[in-house]
């Protein structure tokens, strides 16, 4: 590795020549928004949120897949980039049914975080409302494609870290969707090791542990009478 120096947002930064712009910026404490990037697995440059401007080129470059070079001058937060990022988040929100209030990942969702950061307060494009069915066939986990943003983190972590390659992408264009094995129900998968890496890697509520959803919450109404009686009788053990 050879050390190189570059400028990111007017700051001189040093990095290894095999580093990506994203890594170099991160090391220097400059945050670039990402969604498909996940530390430890290969970058694919799919979500395009980490696009940056490089001086001397009219093109935009994905910071996660572009290597640094000596003397490179990078801008990560220009008006053009902010405009594009905001519209891309709007596109993602319009693509599936991202209704935060009833989502298992509400408050723990990277798409939600990015939308707040980008200042998305409404979506200008039409909601597409696709009808995907949930897959709850797995004994430990669940998949709700309506929350999926197709970042393929589950695909990569399952392939590159677990080595199972249970997940993949099926379909094309707007009909793309994640599948397990050859589009069999997740619970029937012969390759899934139930390791949960895909659930951990998922940035939204698309993959979750069973029992985590609001709908699965069970109320034991019989306890109510017990609590009332217990207070009166001062008996706290049933």
């Amino acid at each position, binding site marked *: 590795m050879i050390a190189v120096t570059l400028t990111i947002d007017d700051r001189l930064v040093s990095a290894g020549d095999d580093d990506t712009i994203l890594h170099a910026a991160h090391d220097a404490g400059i945050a670039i928004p990402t969604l498909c990037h996940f530390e430890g697995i290969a970058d*694919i*440059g*799919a*979500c*395009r949120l980490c*696009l940056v401007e490089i001086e001397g080129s009219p*093109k*935009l470059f*994905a910071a996660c*897949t*572009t*290597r640094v070079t000596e003397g490179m001058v990078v801008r990560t937060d220009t008006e*053009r980039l902010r*405009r*594009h990022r905001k*519209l*891309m988040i709007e*596109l*993602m929100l*319009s*693509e*599936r049914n991202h209704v935060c209030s009833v989502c298992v990942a509400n408050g723990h969702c990277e798409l939600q975080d990015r939308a707040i950061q980008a200042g998305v307060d409404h979506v*200008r*494009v*039409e*909601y*597409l*409302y*696709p*009808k*995907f*069915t949930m*897959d709850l066939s797995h004994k430990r986990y669940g998949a709700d*494609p309506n929350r999926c*943003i*197709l970042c*393929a983190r589950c695909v990569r972590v399952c392939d590159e870290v677990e080595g199972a390659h249970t997940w*993949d*992408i*099926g*379909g*094309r*264009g*707007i*009909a*793309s*969707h*994640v*599948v397990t094995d050859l*589009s069999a129900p997740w619970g029937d998968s012969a390759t899934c090791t139930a390791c949960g890496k895909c659930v951990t890697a998922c940035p939204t509520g698309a993959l979750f542990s069973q029992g985590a959803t609001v709908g699965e919450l069970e109320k034991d109404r019989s306890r109510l009478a017990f609590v009332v009686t217990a207070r009166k009788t001062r008996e706290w053990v049933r």
Partner: protein
Amino acid sequence: MDLSGLHSIAERERHSRKPNTIRCCAAMGCEAARSRQVRVALRSAVAAAGRQDSIEVQGVGCLGLCSAGPLVRVEPQGVMYQRVTPEDVQSIVAAVDGGTSTAERADLSHPFFTLQYPIVLENSGKVDPERIESYVAEGGYETLYHVLREMSPAEVVDEVSRSGLRGRGGAGFPTGLKWATVAKTQADWKCVVCNADEGDPGAFMDRAVMESDPHRILEGMAIAAYAVGANQGYIYVRGEYPLAYDRLQVAIQQADRLGLLGSRIFDSPFDFRIDLRIGAGAFVCGEETALMASIQGQRGTPRPRPPYPAEAGLWGKPTLINNVETFANIPPILKRGGGWYAAIGTDKSKGTKVFSLTGHVRHTGLIEVPMGTTLRTIVEDMGDGVPNGRALKAVQTGGSSGGCVPASEIDVSVDYESLAALGSIMGSGGMVVLDDSTDMVDLARFFMEFCADESCGKCVPCRVGTAQIYRLLERFVAREATESDLVLLEELCDLLRSASLCGLGQNAPNPVLSTLRYFREEYEAGMASIGASRGLIREPAVVGRPA
């Protein structure tokens, strides 16, 4: 195999020829117009007339004028018949020795034929694409022999650079520069890939070349492989071209058998094999990184470049990717010299270009003209203008990634730079003529629907952006759009251009942007009356399909 062996094959082929040849187009356009039945009928008619000894009925590649197929050409008389039916064949055979046939005669003095400059298509309609001997008789594989025996790889690259040839797949990257990069990259294994995944609406140039002259592509690839130091080649043919695939397969087998491919070609130390790969019908697989993923058995999605294939291509090894027409240009360039080729065309766009002329034009078909020929010459002279008394409105060039050149710019020189200045592109060479009945917004919607269908779905701008642009265009067509829709449309087009991962998404807005540039009033006409606003609650859409 050596040069004398090649010459003896050519000699035998020429000697076995009969005094008269009736050539019948066997490319897909004419096949669709029942040329196979015409060929069978011609052979029967020749037998019935007892003329088997003097008349040869030959299936050949594209004769050009696809709109008038099936086409039959009688040699050496130089007479061509069009729209031939099996009922015409007796009179055609009878007229071989003179006299008049009842079959409709094509006017070979028409500019459609006279203004052509065939280099890539020089054998098209002349050789039998299913017989290597027919190609060898026209001097085929001789250039490969001379290259292997008399030139160093560096000299071959220099000659290609000197020719000024630019990639005919669409981007127009200098071919010599690409070859030089691959040649200079050090690796234990390199390969050459022919991109035959032509998929633009209205484009059929590469298909015609593969169906008409498959050996030309093999020879071009072998020369390229020698120049860059590769020993393996792949031709990635789209699955919708079964005839092209069959002919290439036959051609590879024939060349293998004669030792023109395989080990120690022409007894030189050079080994080169070619394998075919069939694409499963995904337009994005024409993008080089997606194509390579597909060859490797992976999902055909593009990846960010760099690294470019020249550095890390198939299986991470240096890979030279050119398209069909680029390879087909190589043998004549090496045979006649780079300087000869560079003298044709314009200052920056050298040589000739094959176009598939289609749409609202009298003569549709395959043409090859020098770069710099004006669009007017192509449409009005060669294509014989717009039929049915209508006026020309625009010419769509460059396929789904291209743009529309309005009739007011019809005198534009057709070359890479001039088309780009008008907001369009050369692309692979599709040329769709549009008359004044064309709804330009609807046309843009058609191309956007194509791009949305063909998007691989990997990156957000392309996957969702094309679908959203398509839905906006639907609103314009239905005259329900608002001013904010127009603003949003332009913003989405800008996003796709700037932020998409590969050329498909980056160029998908071109038809919209070019129609907006020249026909904005049609978009404005698609807006709803003043005061109309978009509803906050809409009916659920069905764009996404269930998993």
